[in-house]
């Protein structure tokens, strides 16, 4: 492929047609004066080469929205070529024109305009060239597929041929004749994104993938005042570093320190990464932040730099006194993260006075000015090569990391790639700013909107490049910008209106983020108008339509309401009337047009939302079930592209509104990973319906942000419709909604929601299992053969007496209790059985051949009853206590079979049991079933056998298990007798009890022990970690028989070794009979869980979300994932008296499992603080071990273990 020439090369090249315009960059709000002083120079917008290549250049970059595809469509349309023939160059400073930062969704609306004119100018020129050659008039000629042709003479020439041998520099004709819209062939038709095949195959080169020969790897170490950029301490807090602390790490090239900037360069990435984590650094203490977790007051107390009054119509002061009904409201918008999935990355190469920077920046030209300032060189020596990065939706750390990279490349004289960590991106990305909106106003007596006095306070968002601040090149003086005014004027007719903006300096580092200030402002406008409609007793849609001033807005809102089948509210139905149990449903509407850029700004696309929600009044959970969005962007260049943007806005803004909020500690941002800043996941997605207005005759409008803007108000209004409660501060988390409902008296004050009691609980149905109950659901297992199907004879071969006897057995066994659903057909199954592990549905017990057990022979039935194996060889869930039934006499079993087969067949498919996390796990069930069978085995040989003795010998002798697993007395000696193997401690790890005094929910059975010792993992108890992982690794040498002997001995330890008192405290250690032991062990879980008077439901707050985002993904049944997915419900460590092992595992992960098959776990020590881990532990305890007392002093324990990591 021919190389793409840069601007200077193009200007000097032959065989090319260039379309030029003098540079005219728009001012960025954050731009420094130095960047503006360059004389205007000619910039290239379009190049047509003699070889026919068409290169189009645009100063805006693709932020992951596929804008390159749309721009190519525009150029192709004007030039009469196909989009694939147009190569787009976006953003590179040495090639593309300077068109300012890629913000405000303005690429199509504004920056594409000169490109379109350039293409039209070029086409006109080519027509004239051909006309001159053929000596005819240009208007006799046509252009098609990259050729100019004369329909009369059949002559034609390609564009390349017309350009060959010339170097033509043309100014873009601002008045060039543009192709009429109604002749469009390409624009307005959906085009597939051209970058996706490369992205789907790993061919695409993101900035993260740039590799330069000789490239080294850099990491930075950031100061503790994370996410702040104002104050004297910034750039002035470093006391010193201890270079020796990383002397043990090979490959370190240099450690660069300038002010508070610290960077490490190493040969390999992992070396730099590790060194950055292990370098010892001393910092001065940082001054406290204002309490941003109390955001309303923090913003109120943040000094206003300037109050701008944007609108003052009528007499607002007087009108406020005259309102028929006056409402004074405060709305608070949280800080959000841009949350790019890829932390920022850059490569810099400073050699021979030339600075090359490969960057994912949003604003290459502004970045170049910043870097020139940082390096104190002329910006002409800097070239920014723009690559795509992870979607940013505003400004993330993409520029910052370029500053880091140039400093490190300068230090070592080699190209250096700097990759920020997840923690750094979370902490330091300039946040989407918090905002405070206050509304005073009300309605007139006839209900019309009368007065609106709106004040919005916006702590601004200049966010100078970090390297400039940390090195002290720029002083960290927070500056107030004018950015709080987007969509600050409501779209409704008020008799009296005043709109004021309080411009204020930032409190923490912030930058524009999708829907900047318009989304918060609209949240206030649209929540307020909804209240006014309710006060006026009018339907919220009708009310808006009545007072909207913009005809296009009305049309859109009306169409959206129709599409969503909006049912007008007359006011007679009170909020909360749509109720099923605890769940209330509601609908909300909101409308907005995103007005961007400096006030009064430009309007982008129009958007209207109708949101459907379900609110669980007990838990406070809000489920957005459906979103209908109407969107009017005028002419859509690429309608699919617009639709995908709208989809993206809907999903992302739903995430922001329901879940997102940056939290802060005393000095800094606190959230360092996705557990503490969770975003929406697939199971939480609403259904989405999008209505795109078809208006090809209208100019194209930016579609990148508009659909986000009404989201928060629509959802809040839906919550109001559902509950009667107005939410005025996102995110609408369960705890916030619970509080609001409690305050409003809609829901009684409760500690925690109570569990749903409509279905039979585990305990209640467990009682029904006292006799024969046929098992519930089959599982796949390779272990057992299917028993062939039979066809039941038409008449029963059994005598009436046998069937009658069977009926008695059936009744005694309460079979129908479980196998008949509420209100369902007898024995046809389908009853949901609540277990602690999830819902299990009973099966169809009638002799229907397809859906019941009609094809089961007696042999198959008998095996299922006694062994828990379904006819087809699958294992049954042990909810069905088949072990209890093995003692049924043969005669009774025959009779039972006879009776069941004589009953009417019912064809009924029952819901499939789909146990959720973690009990849907098939291997778990297989292991569980093994438990039952193996107990049967040792029942037949319960006394001290050769195996038992071998096990005892290994445990007490060779294995010296007691060394760790027995407590020590004050002299340091292992305790014996009752304390033997009663639990000890090693290397800071708790070595759990091996006798009956353990706290675990399921007893350690012999197979569990075998699995654990052989593989390092037991489904029932978790993986071996810490020192035990190493022990298991060692024991890989032992023959199977020895492992089995150890397991056998330990499983029978209590009978032989423990005292009677130990036994009595642990139901699962009852000595005999074996079948009863097994049942008791199983029963131990629910029985203890339910009998505990202190039981509450799991916490449902940030800790729950943290668990879901940071832990649940892996700790869930994933047969298609590498490694085991330990089930935390039965994990011994979660049930232990001490949290130590769990803390160690969370902090340091599992990087040395007993065998690599088990998989690995990352440590979270660098990513979660002690408070966050403590909350996570509290949640896990409440969720998985609610019968156990809460752990105490968690923060202190975590701090201690963090400081004393031990050697495992």
């Amino acid at each position, binding site marked *: 492929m021919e190389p793409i020439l840069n601007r200077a090369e193009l200007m000097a090249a032959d065989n090319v047609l260039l379309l030029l315009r003098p540079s005219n960059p728009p001012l960025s709000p954050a731009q420094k004066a130095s960047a503006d002083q360059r004389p205007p120079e000619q910039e290239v917008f379009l190049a047509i080469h003699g070889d026919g290549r068409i290169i189009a250049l645009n100063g805006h970059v693709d932020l*992951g929205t*596929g804008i*390159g595809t749309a721009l190519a469509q525009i150029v192709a349309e004007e030039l009469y070529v196909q989009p694939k023939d147009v190569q787009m160059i*976006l953003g590179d400073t040495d090639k593309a024109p300077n068109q300012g930062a890629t913000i405000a969704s303005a690429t199509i609306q504004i920056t594409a305009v000169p490109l379109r004119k350039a293409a039209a100018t070029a086409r006109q020129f080519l027509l004239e060239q051909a006309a001159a050659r053929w000596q005819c008039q240009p208007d006799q000629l046509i252009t098609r597929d990259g050729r100019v042709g004369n329909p009369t003479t059949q002559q034609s020439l390609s564009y390349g041929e017309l350009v060959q041998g010339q170097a033509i520099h043309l100014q873009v004709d601002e008045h060039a004749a543009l192709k009429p819209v109604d002749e469009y062939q390409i624009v307005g038709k959906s085009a*597939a*994104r*051209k*970058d*996706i*095949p*490369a*992205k*789907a*195959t*790993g*061919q695409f*080169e*993101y900035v*993260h*993938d740039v*590799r330069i020969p000789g490239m080294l790897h850099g990491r930075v170490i950031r100061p503790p005042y994370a996410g702040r950029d104002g104050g004297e301490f910034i750039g002035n807090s470093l006391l010193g570093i201890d270079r020796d602390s990383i002397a043990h790490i*090979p490959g370190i090239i240099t450690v660069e320190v300038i002010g508070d900037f610290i960077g490490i360069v190493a040969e*390999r990435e*992992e*070396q730099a*990464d590790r060194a950055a984590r292990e370098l010892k650094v001393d910092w001065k203490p940082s001054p406290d932040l204002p309490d941003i977790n109390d955001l309303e007051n923090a913003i109120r107390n943040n000094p206003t730099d300037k109050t701008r009054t944007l609108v003052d119509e009528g007499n607002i002061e007087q009108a406020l006194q005259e309102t028929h009904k006056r409402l004074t409201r405060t709305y608070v918008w949280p800080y959000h993260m*841009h949350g790019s*999935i890829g*932390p920022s990355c850059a490569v810099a190469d400073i050699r021979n006075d030339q600075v090359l920077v490969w960057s994912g920046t949003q604003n290459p030209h502004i970045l170049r000015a910043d870097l020139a300032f940082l390096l104190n060189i002329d910006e002409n020596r800097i070239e920014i090569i723009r690559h*795509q990065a992870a*979607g940013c*939706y505003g400004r993330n750390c993409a520029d910052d990391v370029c500053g880091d990279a140039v400093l490190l490349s300068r230090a070592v004289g080699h190209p250096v790639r700097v*990759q920020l960590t*997840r923690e750094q991106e979370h902490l330091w990305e300039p946040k989407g700013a918090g905002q405070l909106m206050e509304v005073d106003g009300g309605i007139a007596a006839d209900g019309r909107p009368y007065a609106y006095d709106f004040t919005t306070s916006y702590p601004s968002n200049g966010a100078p490049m970090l390297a400039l601040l940390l090195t002290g090149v720029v002083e960290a003086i927070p500056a107030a910008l004018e950015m709080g005014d987007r969509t600050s004027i409501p779209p409704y007719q008020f008799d009296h209106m005043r709109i004021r903006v309080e411009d204020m300096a930032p409190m923490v580092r912030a930058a524009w983020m999708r829907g900047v200030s318009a989304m918060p402002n609209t949240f206030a406008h649209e929540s307020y108008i909804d209240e006014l409609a309710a006060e006026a007793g009018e339907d919220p849609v009708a009310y808006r339509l009545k007072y909207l001033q913009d005809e296009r807005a009305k049309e859109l809102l009306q169409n959206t309401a129709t599409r969503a089948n909006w049912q007008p509210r007359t006011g007679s139905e009170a909020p909360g009337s749509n109720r099923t149990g605890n769940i209330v449903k509601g609908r909300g509407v909101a409308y907005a047009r995103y007005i961007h850029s400096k006030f009064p700004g430009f309007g982008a696309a129009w958007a209207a939302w109708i949101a459907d929600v379900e609110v669980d009044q007990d838990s406070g959970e809000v489920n957005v079930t459906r979103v209908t969005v109407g969107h009017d962007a005028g002419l859509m260049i690429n309608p*699919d592209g617009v*639709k995908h943007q709208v989809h*993206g806005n809907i*999903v*992302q803004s739903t*995430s922001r509104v329901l879940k997102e909020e940056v939290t802060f500690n005393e000095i800094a941002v606190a959230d360092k990973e*996705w557990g503490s800043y969770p975003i929406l996941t*697939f*199971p939480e*997605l609403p259904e*989405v319906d999008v209505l795109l207005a078809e208006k090809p005759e209208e100019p194209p409008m930016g579609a990148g942000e508009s659909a986000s803007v009404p989201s928060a108000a629509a959802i809040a209004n839906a919550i109001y419709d559902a509950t009667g409660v107005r939410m005025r501060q996102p995110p609408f988390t369960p705890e916030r909604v619970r509080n609001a409902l409690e305050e409003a008296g809609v829901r009684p004050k409760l500690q925690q929601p109570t569990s749903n009691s409509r279905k039979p609980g585990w305990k209640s149905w467990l009682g029904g299992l006292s006799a024969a109950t046929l098992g519930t659901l089959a599982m796949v297992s390779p272990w057992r053969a299917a028993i062939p199907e039979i066809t039941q004879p038409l008449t029963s071969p059994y005598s009436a007496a046998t069937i009658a006897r069977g009926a008695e057995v059936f009744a005694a066994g309460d079979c129908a209790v479980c196998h008949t659903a509420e209100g369902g057909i007898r024995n046809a199954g389908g009853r949901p059985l609540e277990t602690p592990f999830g819902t299990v549905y009973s099966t169809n017990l009638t002799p229907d051949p397809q859906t019941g057990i009609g094809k089961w022979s007696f042999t198959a039935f008998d095996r299922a009853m006694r062994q828990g194996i379904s006819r087809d060889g699958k294992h049954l869930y042990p909810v069905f206590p088949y072990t209890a039934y093995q003692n049924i006499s043969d005669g009774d079993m025959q009779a039972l079979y006879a009776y069941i087969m004589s009953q009417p067949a019912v064809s009924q498919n029952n819901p499939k049991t*789909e146990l959720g996390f973690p009990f849907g796990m098939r291997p778990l069930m297989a292991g569980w079933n093994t438990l039952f069978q193996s107990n049967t085995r040792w029942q037949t040989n319960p006394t001290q056998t050769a195996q038992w003795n071998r096990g005892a010998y290994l445990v007490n002798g060779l294995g010296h298990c007691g060394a760790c697993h027995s407590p020590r007395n004050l002299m340091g000696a292992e305790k014996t007798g009752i304390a033997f193997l009663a639990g000890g401690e090693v290397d800071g790890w708790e070595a759990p009890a091996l006798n009956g005094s353990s706290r675990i929910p399921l007893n350690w059975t012999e197979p569990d022990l075998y699995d654990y010792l052989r593989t390092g993992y037991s489904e029932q108890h978790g993986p071996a970690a810490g020192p035990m992982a190493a022990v298991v690794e060692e024991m890989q040498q032992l023959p199977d028989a020895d492992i089995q002997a150890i397991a056998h001995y330990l499983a029978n330890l209590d009978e032989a070794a423990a005292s009677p008192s130990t036994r009595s405290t642990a139901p699962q250690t009852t000595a005999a009979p074996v079948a009863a032991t097994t049942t008791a062990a199983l029963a131990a879980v629910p029985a203890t869980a339910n009998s505990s008077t202190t039981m509450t439901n799991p916490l449902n707050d940030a800790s729950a979300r943290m668990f879901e985002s940071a832990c*649940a*993904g*892996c700790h*869930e049944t994933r047969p*298609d*994932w*590498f490694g085991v997915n330990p089930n935390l419900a039965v994990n011994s460590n979660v049930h232990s008296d001490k949290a130590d092992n769990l803390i*160690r595992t969370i902090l340091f992960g599992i*990087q*040395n499992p007993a065998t690599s098959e088990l998989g*690995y776990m*990352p440590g979270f020590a660098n990513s979660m603080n002690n408070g966050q881990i403590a909350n996570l532990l509290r949640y896990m305890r409440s969720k998985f071990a609610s019968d156990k007392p809460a752990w105490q002093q968690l923060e202190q324990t975590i701090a201690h273990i963090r400081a004393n990591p*031990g*050697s495992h």
Partner: protein
Amino acid sequence: MNPTATQTREITLTVNRQVITIQADPNSPLLFALRNDCQLNGPKYGCGLGECGACSILIDGKTARSCSIPLKAAIGRQITTLEGLSQNGQLHPVQQAFVDAQGAQCGYCLNGMIITTTAWLDHLTERPSEADIRNALKANLCRCGTHLEILDAVRLAVANKFPEADSAATRQPQTNQPQQDQTSTNPLEENSPWNRF
């Protein structure tokens, strides 16, 4: 906590059916070796904590998060990355489904989505429900809100594997794109000018 040795040593990996020998610390993250030594663009660094899925690869056909797995775990196993899914210039059916359903905005998460879907589908023996589909990608994060197109892509891939298409689980993607009906695969464009813009 393990004070793992920092010694680099020779390590032989099998990546995308090719054997490669590198010098590295066996305890360092596998992701770094794939990015730097193998020069692969598929697996992406997202969180380093197993939370987002961007770094996903296949180890012996199962999904693994290469950021949280040490290099030593890959020894003696088959590593497949996004690059290795397509063979002979033909897209893997899951890749094709993502292209057809336009399942990317920035595409940074795309690697994880495709890899996770591939292993999940390979292990499925029955047609999954809609809830199954969503749950399969529950621990894969996307910031661009591309979820709807990604779900379309997964439904397409599911429908290809379990062709009896009348079940509710395979309702047609919401996007009405003509490409949906195509079953042909796109050849890879080497050095496509669209690789970067």
